[in-house]
């Protein structure tokens, strides 16, 4: 399981447990040193990640509200879980999240791999253009979401203006974030714009990891470029592509900031992804117990999906 998504990690882990090397000349034993090195990180994670997680699990079985410190905390058993899993309104955000995650992954992967493949042709100035392409992913998602709201304005915004110019339609004939049909795509477009560069980077690393001699051998065998692509490039870059899918999947499953600022989940609840629902329950309704249960459900979902996915990834790698 620790083999999470890192090519060759298995080898590395095997190598990482060596026979004890030279004895320390003085001072601490290696074992003590090891703990000294690792402990600070573990302690920090225990304090800021694990302890809160356990607390969340506890709270999820209560009716606690963080805005009523004086009210008694009552255990309610699994009521919170039951009411979430049987509430039809909760499936809406789950569907919105799934739509968002699946489409962004698909488009970003195809586009990102395509760009990486092109950049790997090593044309003149590819370094400079790669750096330029990367800029969107350095922006703050919240700031991006807010600014795209401005760009998507049907009357005053640039997006409709440009699309209107290209298609000859009136710019205000469609509303990206206002219509039920287009709103789910408006958040996908922004995410693709922002995060395709990330996929480009990972795929580029994958393409660069393919040794030249394999292509040279293929040339000797007179394999066509097309065939080389399907038999060498794609299979060898696949673990990296899958890694990109994993990272983007996890990140977008957690998506909050960009969508919250761009659409606030609207129109109605069309783009209300799971994290927005969670935020509303936890920090607006202040139903701390209920929202803790919801948080646990989300965590288990992403954790479970990631686990299944990593198993698949490891199989691809070992082929």
């Amino acid at each position, binding site marked *: *399981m620790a083999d*999470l*998504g*890192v090519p060759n990690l298995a080898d*590395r882990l095997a190598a*990482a447990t060596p026979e004890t*090397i*030279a004895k*320390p*000349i003085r*001072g601490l034993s*290696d074992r003590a*040193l*090891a*703990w000294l*090195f*690792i402990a*600070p*990180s*573990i302690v*920090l994670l225990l304090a800021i*990640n*694990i302890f809160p997680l356990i607390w969340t699990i506890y*709270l999820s079985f209560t009716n606690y509200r963080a805005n009523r410190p004086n009210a008694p905390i009552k255990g309610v058993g699994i009521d919170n879980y039951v009411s979430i899993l049987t509430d039809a309104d909760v499936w809406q955000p789950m569907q919105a999240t799934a739509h968002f995650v699946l489409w962004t992954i698909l488009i970003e992967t195809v586009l990102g791999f395509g*760009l990486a493949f*092109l*950049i790997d*042709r090593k*044309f003149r100035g590819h370094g400079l*253009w790669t750096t330029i*392409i990367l*800029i969107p992913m*350095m*922006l*703050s*998602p*919240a*700031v991006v*979401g*807010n*600014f*795209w709201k*401005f760009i998507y304005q049907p*009357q*005053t915004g*640039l997006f409709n203006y440009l699309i209107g110019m290209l298609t000859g339609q009136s710019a205000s004939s469609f509303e990206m974030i206002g219509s039920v049909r287009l709103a789910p795509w408006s958040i996908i477009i922004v995410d693709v*714009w922002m995060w395709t560069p990330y996929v480009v980077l*990972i795929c580029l*690393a994958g393409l660069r990891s393919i040794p*030249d001699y394999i292509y040279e051998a293929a040339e000797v065998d007179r394999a066509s470029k097309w065939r080389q692509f399907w038999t060498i490039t794609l299979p060898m870059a696949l673990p*990296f592509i899958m890694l990109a899918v994993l990272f983007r999947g996890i990140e977008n499953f957690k998506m*909050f900031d960009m969508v919250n*600022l761009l659409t606030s989940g609207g129109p109605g609840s069309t783009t209300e992804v799971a994290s927005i629902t969670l935020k509303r329950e936890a*920090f607006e309704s202040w139903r*701390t117990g209920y929202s803790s249960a919801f*948080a646990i459900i*989300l*965590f288990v979902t*992403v954790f479970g999906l*990631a686990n299944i996915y990593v198993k698949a990834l490891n199989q691809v790698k070992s082929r």
Partner: protein
Amino acid sequence: MTTAAHSVVEPSPRSKAIAGTLVILYAVISMIPLVWIGMTALKTPSDAIAYPPKIIFTPSMAGFCDLFTTQSRQTEDYIKTLPPPTDTCDEITRSRGLVTAGPSNFLPRFFNSFIIAFGSTFLAVALGTLAAYGFSRFKVPMADDLLFFILSTRMMPPIAVAIPIYLMYRELGLSDTHLGMILLYTAVNVSLAVWLMKGFIDEIPREYEEAAMIDGYTRLQAFRKVVLPQAATGIAATAIFCLIFAWNEYAFAVLLTSGSAQTAPPFIPIIIGEGGQDWPAVAAGTTLFLIPIVVFTVLLRKHLLRGITFGAVRK
């Protein structure tokens, strides 16, 4: 690879030209929103919301002035009673029928971003490097489980983590403090740092340290004098990724900070001018906020590619 006459893997000039054209086309299209942000920063508030949008306009510093100050619209009679304007921004503001009421919160927020992002990046990289070295070089019981545990902490949605953190910080008095935010961002980044750094350190041949230790170095000295310099590339790449996260983070910042420790991302989207959102000021803030991270990334860009795949790429 540079001048190898006709290497079989060197793409043909034609395929290079096509590839170059397509990549540049994509780059140009993806730059449009950023150029638009830059242009909006130089517009007046009314030009920014003109319809149809104005491509050609007279540049103005109003956006930057609005970013750093708060203004109030007053009548001409009232403005006449005030002492003369003290600086250019004051003048620009007055000419729009407004008075400068005071400084805005942008500078303090920007400063908070600086402290929290760089502070937590430094800590995360430092802790991550140590732990990575520990995992890489020593026999750690349950190393696999620990490593996976470290990574899994990154799978929690930030809002989910924020609920108990909020309660915990409230009890400990860490809400809205620099220390609280630095610790939190460090915790989020340290998992990434451990994994990235482990990849890099694994690649440093252990013979180097062994040789140094035979020469009389202790292990700590060997770590400092041999391993660290070798891992510089990895440290740089790790720092970029930690910094991009910490610099841009929004969800924790908006839920756990309010004034004294709030960073810029929750602040920029809420710059309200007279009535409506002050888009030139928002754009000006966005532009200024982007500059440090772009500079940092460009300075360290060579290391970026290696970092993103957890250092798994081998030369």
